[in-house]
């Protein structure tokens, strides 16, 4: 009889522990995660002139939908999305001599009328010096605001498309028909997307 009583007590205690575990150990939390997205716009430059222009189209909505999908989140989960920084790097350069370039990168919307606004200015930037190096850019508020508006439109259900343009104004030494300036470079925008997720976490006591 004593053995039965003891075993019954043990089973009861275990049952209480398990019942308690299943009902109150896991708690719901609405946690704000940060998803980091890097959007790059590659430019192929091949020009005999110092004042060359080049454009790259970025389908922002597609990029954002892809990164949200990778993180098991949807557009409706976004709390906010904002530009963090921009860097650029030269991805291909094989001249026998370096070039210093001066100009600006502008941004405008393709899907609606907005911009162009200057995103960044670069002055006497060595092309060879930026080869394989992420150069942090000092950003212009007008260009950043335009992209932040595009991010807000995306959150509201829009499908923003951005056009980045390089407007180069000076090259030293000056290029010529016999000495084209040829290189590839890539400005990359870092965006933080704050998404909220309803998850279960263990918090038993």
């Amino acid at each position: 009889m004593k053995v039965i009583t003891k075993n019954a007590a043990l089973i009861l205690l275990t049952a209480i522990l398990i019942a308690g575990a299943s009902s109150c150990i896991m708690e719901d939390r609405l946690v704000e995660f940060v998803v980091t997205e890097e959007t790059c716009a590659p430019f192929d430059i091949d020009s005999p002139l110092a004042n060359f222009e080049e454009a790259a189209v970025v389908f922002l909505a597609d990029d954002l939908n892809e990164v949200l999908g990778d993180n098991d989140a949807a557009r409706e989960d976004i709390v906010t999305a904002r530009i963090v920084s921009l860097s650029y790097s030269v991805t291909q350069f094989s001249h026998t001599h370096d070039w210093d370039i001066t100009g600006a990168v502008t941004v405008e919307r393709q899907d609606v009328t907005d911009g162009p606004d200057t995103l960044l200015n670069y002055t006497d930037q060595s092309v060879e010096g930026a080869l394989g190096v992420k150069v942090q850019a000092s950003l212009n508020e007008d260009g950043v605001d335009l992209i932040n508006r595009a991010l807000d439109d995306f959150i509201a259900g829009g499908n923003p498309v951005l056009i980045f343009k390089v407007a180069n104004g000076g090259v030293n030494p000056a290029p010529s028909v016999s000495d084209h300036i040829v290189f590839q470079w890539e400005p990359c925008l870092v965006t933080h997307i704050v998404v909220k997720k309803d998850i279960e976490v263990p918090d038993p006591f």
Partner: protein
Amino acid sequence: MPFAAIVRRSCVLLALLVCVATPLSAQIESQLSAYTGANATGYLQPLANAFGADLNCGIFRSASIPHLRPSLRLEVQVMSVFFGDDDKTFMAVTEHGFSPEQRVSAPTVVGSEKAVLVDGDGGTSYAFPGGFDLHSFALAAPQLRVGGLFGTEAIFRYFAIRVAGGDGEENKDLGDINFFGFGLKHDISQYMPPGLPVDLSAGFFWQRLSIGENERGGHLMESNAFSIGVQASKKLAYFFVPYTGLSYDTHSMSVSYDTESDGTKKTENIDLDKTSTLHFTLGLMLNTPGMNIFGEYNIASLSSFSFGVGLGF
């Protein structure tokens, strides 16, 4: 309830019996992916401290060990800590070339669920991820005691389970658990003059716990704990056994997770601060033949409590 949901709940419950932290590990990896280096360390440190405090409690209990009588006892116990306000935030620093660099108070893994945003140059903003708003952190562990040979008892903790590989993404997220611990406890009363009012023992215990899986198949978290100390207990009437102990504990934890925070995918390996602490235990055990129940409070750099039940002889 759909079958998949029943399976998932069963898996969660099974995991809870050994380690309630496991479902958290996959979510932590998501949050960590926004961080590198010192930020990741600061974000995770309260959880690492909690792991150490939990693992190093509920080990020794009664100092009475049979000298030449076989004993075998299987125990299940829950070890837990409560988090204080100091554990909820850390000083984080902006990353990703954000200008100007700023240091702000951001949530740790156990802190507020809300992200923290700071403004920078030219209309830019930086976001620090939220925490999981945890008040406590508990582990559960099966423990086997085998004795008594010349007043010595061996203690084992072991569990291994893989909860990954299910059809559902959430099942996959649970990851795996590998838990092993071994220690010895020896009766030192036998070397003392007769007439001691209490039983005395000394012992050590080492444990390794790995949880979760990163995208490269390695462990997300690995934790090592070691405790060495002395215990005293006294058997009173009605099977009551109050006990106390003083030990020196160490704990280390490493985290290996995947991140694309700087635009390129890489594995970030973080060694969290190793902790060492003196640890004082006060507990009470109801020790009947065949079964015992115990509860104890542990005072250390992070105080903890433990309770459980054992079955054996």
